[in-house]
């Protein structure tokens, strides 16, 4: 940013503030528009519905992505981590193993995927794009081979159902359990990123890897940890998905990928330094979730919804990037 050049005029400060308010303003306008257009949309029950069904799972994945992008990388293997966790857990539960063991083994599987990615990116220095894409391809094969080409595994017996249902549909203090998990994940990532030495290393590795290395920061270890953390969060998301639908559907985790990347970057628009940040990411995920729900309720054709989401993301990004460019131009 060329903020240091010349005096920061009042107009430029105004512009900077405007840029940061583009995404929240769009969100509020859409909320109002949907609330006016659809009586169902404005019920409190629908808000909970959006939060539980359109927000929690992508939010957890997007929080991991926020960490990875902060460290200057990208993780295309989020779906693989989520799917492998679900596959292991559901397979174990289907053969009547305990809930704790199954979920633990699922998370361990996700961490395993994360460690492979870490080894490739931090250990061997392969570009994150290529490394995580390679893992995604291998993950697809593993799932197809394990499920005979993609046959879902259903939990027919109601043996682990009680605990699993509690996980997906239970409430604590009136708040659904998945939302508590999102909250915990958000606090964890926020604390790590903003209030620890690890977080400073993450941001330094992302902003200027060379400088970070020459300053003696443990860049490789930091980057390795970031991918394992991301995989762990994706694993949690995959397990929640499996608990919600009481089954494992192969390759279903890939649906999170583009929303997670999109949300993390839409989130950068509310930060003064245009960096990935936890509140921004959550805002981005909520924006997407609300849009899907709202368009459905006002009766838009499913096909047009996708066009609308694309156009909206495009507009938000265009507005904030163009304004930022104006801001640093003079």
């Amino acid at each position: 940013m060329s903020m240091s050049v010349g005096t920061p005029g009042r107009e430029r400060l105004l512009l900077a503030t405007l840029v940061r308010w583009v995404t929240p303003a769009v969100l509020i306008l859409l909320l109002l528009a949907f609330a006016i257009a659809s009586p169902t949309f404005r019920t409190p029950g629908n808000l909970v519905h959006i939060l539980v069904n359109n927000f929690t799972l992508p939010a957890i994945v997007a929080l991991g992505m926020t960490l990875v992008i902060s460290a200057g990388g990208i993780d295309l293997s989020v779906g693989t981590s989520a799917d492998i966790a679900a596959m292991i857990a559901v397979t174990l539960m289907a053969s009547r193993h305990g809930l704790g063991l199954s979920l633990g083994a699922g998370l361990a599987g996700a961490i395993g995927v994360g460690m492979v990615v870490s080894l490739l990116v931090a250990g061997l220095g392969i570009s994150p794009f290529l490394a995580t894409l390679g893992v995604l391809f291998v993950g697809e094969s593993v799932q197809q081979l394990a499920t005979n080409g993609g046959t879902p595994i259903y939990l027919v017996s109601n043996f682990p159902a009680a605990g699993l249902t509690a996980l997906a549909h239970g409430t604590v203090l009136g708040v659904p359990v998945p939302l508590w998990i999102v909250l915990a994940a958000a606090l964890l990532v926020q604390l790590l990123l903003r209030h620890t030495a690890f977080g400073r290393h993450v941001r330094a590795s992302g902003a200027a890897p060379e400088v970070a290395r020459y300053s003696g920061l443990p860049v490789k270890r930091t980057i390795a940890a970031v991918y394992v953390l991301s995989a762990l969060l994706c694993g949690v998301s995959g397990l929640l998905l499996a608990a919600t639908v009481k089954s494992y559907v192969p390759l279903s985790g890939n649906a999170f990928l583009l929303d997670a990347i999109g949300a993390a970057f839409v989130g950068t628009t509310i930060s003064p330094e245009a960096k990935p940040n936890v509140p921004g990411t959550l805002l981005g995920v909520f924006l997407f979730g609300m849009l899907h729900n709202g368009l459905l309720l006002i009766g838009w054709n499913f096909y047009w919804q996708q066009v609308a989401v694309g156009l909206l993301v495009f507009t938000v990004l265009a507005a904030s990037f163009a304004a930022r460019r104006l801001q640093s131009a003079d």
Partner: protein
Amino acid sequence: MSGEIFNPAETASFAPETRPERASRRRPSSGQTIRLGSLAALVLVFVYFAYAAPGFTALGNLTNIVEQSAVLALLAFGMTAVIVGGGGDVIRGGIDLSLGANLGLCTAVYAVSSAAGYSDSVSVLLTFGAGIAVGALNGLAVVALGILPLLTTLAVMNICAGLELVLTQNTVISSSSPLLAWISSAAWLGLSITSWTFILTAALMLVLVHRTPWGLRLQAVGGHQQAARAAGLRLSLYLVATYMGAGLLAGLASILQAARLSGSSPGSGDILLSVVLTSLMSVVFSRRLAPSIGGTILSVLFIGGLINGFQLLNVSSYWVNGVQGVLILGIVSLRSLSRRPGSV
């Protein structure tokens, strides 16, 4: 270090005096090792198939590989051009994630317009127009608005995929036109029109990107933006051209796709990740460890040969993605292993 794949465009600005020199002294030898290693892997895989898979080396089968890889190849050429011009940074570098969806949209445009009774020339014009328009939207957003290519093309991908659904209502639209009939039946020197399109486009792109002053300047733009700008190049023209060119190639590929499927069917966008992988893999086949059209041709044939060989060996298609992923990761690991310790 992990921030880029081949070019220190971003990090170079932190240590401009030391890095480029060191890079140029180091690259040729390690680049050569990796390229030879990758070529050896390619040759080994083909030799194995020639030995184990009956009929792999038959002329008919080899032309088959070329024919089946054509759509992937055209898209990968576009992707490579975009990466060459945009640079290799993971977040800020050039990439076109909308190519798969653009292919789907163009195929739908062709199928719908020819089903609506328009002549081939009108349909082809509309198809190419759609492809170029999508490319222009990408290019202008990247250049004029300054949105990261990764994000621009992600949003445009959604728009294209949605428009395809709107056009086709998520159904198969079959079309039969004189053009499609000609593409699927005509042959010259034993090669189909589809194969010829692959070969001619490959030759054209090879010359354009690697043998013309324009291509050299494009590489300069991707290699180091500030240096290219200081040298007086108008970056925006080069960048917009690569995105529009990629869009046009998606349009061309969509006609081949329509001929192969006799129309349009949902799910064309799935090819995206293969395209990304193919283009990035071109790096290990090039002397300078940079994305190149020659490398892209080799990686397309590698992947095409792999899929074909597996089919002949009756190996379940579920293995293809995994083996492809492992091979590529293995080859790319060669690069880091041949690197001197301490270097980036």
